[in-house]
């Protein structure tokens, strides 16, 4: 086991949203709002906790019925109201840590709506995950955010 076992990658996802920055930011900042879109499919019965302040923690725990538990544990590093959220998070599958990431969310005014730019700089550990899968999963999450905002 002398092989290097961590791969690093960055991906960027941009979304134009028909909602002003304050509304988009609130979907991240308000625990009740974030719980409506953030997490796995409904059958995962995800449990969500968050303390939205610099140094505060967030967790989301759940998984397919009878399957392995997925746990996201994050920490907020920088928050600028209506503009920016920076967090690091790690992902566990069962007892195995599969990745550590730095995620930045930028929200910019765009006409009557907003432009959201999410950049994830990730370290994927020991071959359990990769940037392609993570980007796909994150695109689904941001799709859920958009559905929530439009509802």
């Amino acid at each position: 086991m002398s092989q290097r076992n961590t791969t690093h990658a960055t991906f960027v996802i941009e979304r134009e949203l028909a909602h002003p920055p304050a509304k988009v930011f609130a979907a991240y900042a308000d625990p009740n709002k974030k719980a409506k879109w953030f997490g796995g499919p409904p059958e995962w019965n995800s449990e969500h906790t968050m303390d939205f302040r610099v140094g505060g923690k967030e967790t989301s725990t759940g998984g397919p019925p009878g399957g392995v538990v997925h746990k996201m544990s994050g920490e907020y590093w920088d928050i600028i109201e209506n503009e920016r959220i920076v967090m690091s998070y790690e992902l566990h599958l069962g007892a195995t840590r599969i990745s550590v990431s730095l995620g930045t969310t930028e929200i910019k005014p765009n006409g009557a709506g907003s432009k959201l730019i999410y950049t994830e700089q990730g370290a994927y550990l020991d071959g359990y995950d990769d940037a392609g899968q993570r980007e796909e999963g994150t695109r689904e999450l941001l799709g859920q955010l958009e559905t929530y905002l439009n509802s």
Partner: protein
Amino acid sequence: MTTIAHATIAMERTYSASPARVFAAWSDVEARKRWSTPTDNIRIEYEAADFREGGKDVSRCIEPGNADYVATVTYIDIRQDRRLVFAEDVVHGEKRVSAALISMELTPKDAHTHLTLTMQIASFDEAGMESGYQFGWSAALDNLAKEFSQ
């Protein structure tokens, strides 16, 4: 309007020491104080040091004539003698200037150890922290060799 500049910097070094010895130079805060100082006129003081997963370090980088740079680290992944992953931010004066994810990996190579350092940096509001990381860590990794010179 705020902006974020993202960058990734990778550095590699080979040290004449075992992975256990190189790892110990990272886990031991007294050793880190010696080698992580990039230049002689800069001093580093630790206000907190807690080397375990979930533990935090707070260090103050003091340079005459400049506001202090205060770095807060959260250790996330620690594999003894193999790997270290931590997140940190840097506050300069009153302003948070960056957040970064830093991975350090050690690979044995004959009687030596190959070290790879990968810094994934988000620099805020044109703070130019990419060049700060480049300069500071390049000098620190060179200094680290001196820990093993005897």
